[in-house]
């Protein structure tokens, strides 16, 4: 495809730029409330908002009971 005009390449480039813009805006919004930490470093919360109610999560994010 080198040297030839391919509209699909431009469509994909524009989409990529839109994704980048979305991630930038999403990150900027989060930074307004202070520094951001990785999700993996945050404490697991139980239904009452306390820490350590579960023993991890299934890959879908479903909390798994400790037993």
């Amino acid at each position: 495809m080198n040297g030839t005009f391919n509209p699909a390449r431009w469509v994909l480039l524009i989409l990529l730029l839109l994704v980048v813009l979305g991630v930038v805006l999403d990150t900027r919004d989060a930074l307004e409330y202070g520094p951001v930490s990785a999700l993996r470093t945050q404490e697991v919360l139980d239904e009452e908002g306390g820490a350590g109610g579960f023993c991890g999560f299934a890959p879908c994010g479903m909390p798994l009971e400790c037993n």
Partner: protein
Amino acid sequence: MTVAVSPANAAGARRIDTPVVLVAAAGIFALVLACFSIIDLRQALLALVGVGFGYVMYQASFSFAGGWRAAITEGRTASIRAQMLAIGLAAIAIMPLLEQGSVFGQTLTGAVGPIGVSLMVGSLLFGFGMQLGGGCASGTLFTVGGGSTRMLLTLAFFITGALIGTAHLPWWSAQWNLGVVQPARDWGVLPALLLQLAGLALVFVLARRWEQRKRQKVASILQPPADGPALRPLERLWRGYWPLALASVLLALLSVANLLLAGQPWSVTFAFNLWGAKLAGLLGIDVASWEYWTWSMPAQALDGPVLAESTSVTNFGLILGALLAAGLAGRFAPVTRIPLGSALAAIAGGLLMGYGARLAFGCNVGALFSGLASGSLHGWVWFALAFIGSLAGVRARRWFGLES
């Protein structure tokens, strides 16, 4: 897998696509820099692990959906054998690591899930959908990165299906289930690992026999694909056509790196939930009030930026890694025209995969690859039922005018 940029179709003498390589390199640099400066070094390294996943999968054409279809319709089982090898190698490292509980100060959690109605329905739907969609979760991402516009459609509806799945998962997960079954808990890690490896070896041998019976010869996964051009070994680094066994080893190593950095094994579709929820929020849909999004981890993920969430970062890296690979191999050739039947199949397949992955607690990566590598029995149930779903999905491809 329906890959518009299939290596098998590529001519021997393609040049490096410099604009594509530059865009991919700039994207990777920006992603790594953003993760490092905003989150931490681990997140930046995770982005590079994602790049590795995408690069390896593209250069070796490592696919789950296409591999299963080739086994069903043509008796070619190299992909399935390579999958078993990759999962087995990953399990050898991941199961003992999970037994330790934490490494380098990072708590480790396996890709486990309960065995029950939700898993069974979800994996059947996923297997059916991945044959219509033309790729599984990882395959959808790496073919999108490789320039497949059709797979963009699959991805968009994959995300939609995953979001719908989050609305229904609390109900499904309340249905009958056995809970999480991990033989390592009862028998110890070594017997459980040996049993897991025996199961994977059995599938490997059965696949080999099936190919021998159907084709009277067995393609080696140690050799480059027979239909590729003749290339020097070093040239294959960027031109592709890698032996599948090489990809298996590299994917296993990358999945171990993923576990050490993220604290969880390689996963893909949680990010699709999150992207869908964020996009729905932009459309004014109050996703945060749905039960699923009130659970601890999803709620925290929704509150934070996508860059703070591991699977989003590895997914972005995976797409960019595949883009880089396609540019270096000179195979980035997107097309704008998608036949109506193919587009409808992509939409249906995407929706079914997204919904199915949510119900099944993961996709071919989170439930199959990482589930089995974590020693969770739900990975085997997922494998069996997704394969049955695929058998039906291969037949259903004709409804949309797709070749079986």
